[in-house]
């Protein structure tokens, strides 16, 4: 009996924040803990409405952002795919627990909808000022994956990706949105769940007495059993050995820190997501991300209509920094332009890898307004 299976994808009209929820649920997220903050609140509201309908879904509003991320880590240790969402001030409060999740290798997704700062700043205005904080906000050397999204469909896709990376590499993943992307409402396609790739953490198959929760194996990532499954082990924010017990022996500490970096480094290309738009023959290139990436896409179209060979490298992975893709454009183009809504946080990375190959120009807008395609076009044509 040959029946053509009807695809179950559907189209909806959604906010960026709502698309994050759709993506999270597709990825298997069944736990949300957080604290309301503009402009991320719709994520919490939608989760509060949706999660209790799932068989095991849990939503809880905690007393502050510190508690929100704490509960998410607890839930993840207990085997859940868990996430939280926040914005500026809340992101600052969460920094200590990002470090804890990093050292204990706890998978989780943290969505930070960037608003203008510092401090309370302009709660309803967009910015991209948290890029370096996402990379280096928590104290101590630590590996982290930072992703970004620039339109509503990307919000959905990158949330799924964020969960997949978190589970695959046992690491916190930060998804950076901005107020414009989070509050844009547009038509998106929710894919058929069967059409998307969902990765879940590796569970141990060995007997409990053989299990090492932080083993230095080939992948650099150990299997992770949920609490209460018979694998009794110790989780600590102290630097620990393969068994999870605190250690300060130089050899054990060194191999531990090296491993948590290696587990991300050795899968570098797997983690890189960039869009190369009209880059093949580009003589000038824009490097952008988030809502600015969208404006830049328009600017490229406008430039091409004028016969100018302009390309766009749209970064969806921000950290680990997509150095090989950026270097390629730096070699190829006489100038690159990094427009961003901060004082130069990604252009700093671009300049770091440039090493005199090309001219790096910037547009830095910090007045709570988005960068327009016209502005980008004007600047890129100047060279």
């Amino acid at each position, binding site marked *: 009996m040959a029946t053509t299976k009807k695809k179950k994808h559907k189209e909806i009209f959604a906010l960026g924040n709502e698309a994050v929820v759709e993506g999270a649920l597709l990825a298997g997220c069944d*736990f949300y*803990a957080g604290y309301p903050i503009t402009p991320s609140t719709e994520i919490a509201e939608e989760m509060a409405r949706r999660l*209790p*309908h799932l068989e095991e879904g*849990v939503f*809880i509003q*905690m*007393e*502050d952002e*510190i*508690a*929100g*991320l*704490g*509960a*998410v*880590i*607890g*839930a*993840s*240790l*207990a*085997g*859940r795919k*868990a996430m939280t969402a926040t914005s500026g001030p809340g992101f600052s409060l969460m920094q*200590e*627990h990002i470090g*804890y999740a990093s050292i204990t290798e706890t998978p989780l997704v943290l969505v930070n909808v960037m608003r203008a700062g510092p401090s309370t700043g302009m709660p309803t205005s967009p910015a991209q000022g948290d890029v370096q904080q996402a990379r280096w906000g928590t104290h101590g050397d630590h590996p982290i994956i930072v992703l970004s999204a620039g339109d509503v469909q990307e919000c959905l896709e990158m949330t799924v990706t964020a969960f997949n990376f978190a589970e695959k590499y046992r690491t916190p993943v930060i998804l950076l949105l901005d107020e414009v992307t989070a509050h844009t409402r547009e038509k998106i396609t929710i894919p058929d769940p069967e059409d998307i790739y969902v990765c879940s953490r590796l569970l141990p198959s060995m007997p409990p007495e053989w299990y090492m929760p932080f083993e230095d194996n080939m992948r650099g990532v150990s299997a992770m059993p*949920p*609490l*209460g*499954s*018979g694998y*009794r*082990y*110790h*989780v*600590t*924010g*102290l630097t620990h050995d393969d*068994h999870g*017990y*605190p250690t300060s022996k130089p050899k054990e500490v060194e191999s531990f820190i090296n491993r948590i970096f290696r587990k991300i480094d050795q899968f570098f290309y797997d983690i890189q997501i960039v869009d190369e738009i009209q880059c093949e023959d580009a003589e000038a290139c824009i490097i952008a991300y988030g809502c600015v990436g969208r404006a830049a896409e328009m600017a490229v179209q406008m430039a091409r209509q004028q016969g100018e060979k302009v390309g766009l490298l749209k970064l969806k992975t921000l950290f680990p920094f997509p150095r090989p893709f950026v270097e390629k454009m730096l070699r190829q183009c006489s100038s690159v332009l990094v427009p961003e809504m901060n004082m130069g946080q990604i252009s700093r990375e671009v300049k770091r890898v440039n090493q005199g190959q090309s001219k790096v120009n910037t547009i830095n807008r910090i007045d709570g307004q988005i960068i327009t395609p016209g502005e980008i076009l004007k600047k890129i044509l100047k060279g």
Partner: protein
Amino acid sequence: MAKVTQLIHDYLRHSKKFPHVFCPGCGHGIVLGSLIRSVHAQDIPKDDIVLVAGIGCSGRIPVYVDFNTVHTTHGRALTFATGIKLANPRLKVIVIMGDGDAMSIGGNHLIHAARRNIGLTTLVLNNHIYGMTGGQSSSTTPFGCYSTTTPYGQMEKEFDIAEISKACGANFVARATVMQANLMDRLISTALVNPGFNLVEAITPCHTQFGRKNKYKSTVDMYKWLKKNSVSMEKYKELPPEKQKDVVSTGVLTHNECAGLEERYVQMRLKITGEAK
């Protein structure tokens, strides 16, 4: 005695290299012993127990015990425990905190966990001082007492952990000193099986950091003081107010059996998905 020691050994991690971090005369081991006896008496499997702790001397307890153990960040143990309990309500989640952990940096989380009445067993080991960082004052350091950050005497009034938890809506709140091992066993046993948020405040002496600065000649002096000055709740209520402040009241402050948050969550789910009648 040998039997009791044997029992405790059954629950310790032999792969973890002893000696432990606790000073001679520390009361924390007595509380851990009491916890182990209570867990054993209630016949709870090791696999079902998650022991969550914060930072400080009390935070070092979990690593020695053969349960699922999580050593979290300073003051935030209850937030992790809340996530664990909601993620898997079948687990018996026990939280160990110190006084600085529970009431100073983590005060916000304590009052909200009590208000939510989430199904946790919380032990607050109150030694009235920051032990691990070297004897600074905490929010429970009694008025007038000395510490490295109150070298001229504490000028602030101290918190009463048990009273605050009770006021915030915890189901079961009790207090015992480490000189009352049997009472503590009974209280922790109740706190393990009672629904909702259960808190036992354990008064445990720290001679190294608190006693030496506050005219206790030896550890033994501190234990003697505790033994002499702890009174039952009933007797405490009859004392005149000026005498009340010089003693430690022990026993049960409140005991309710309201459903924990995790049970109410299940009920809510059944209601909205139409499975409840």
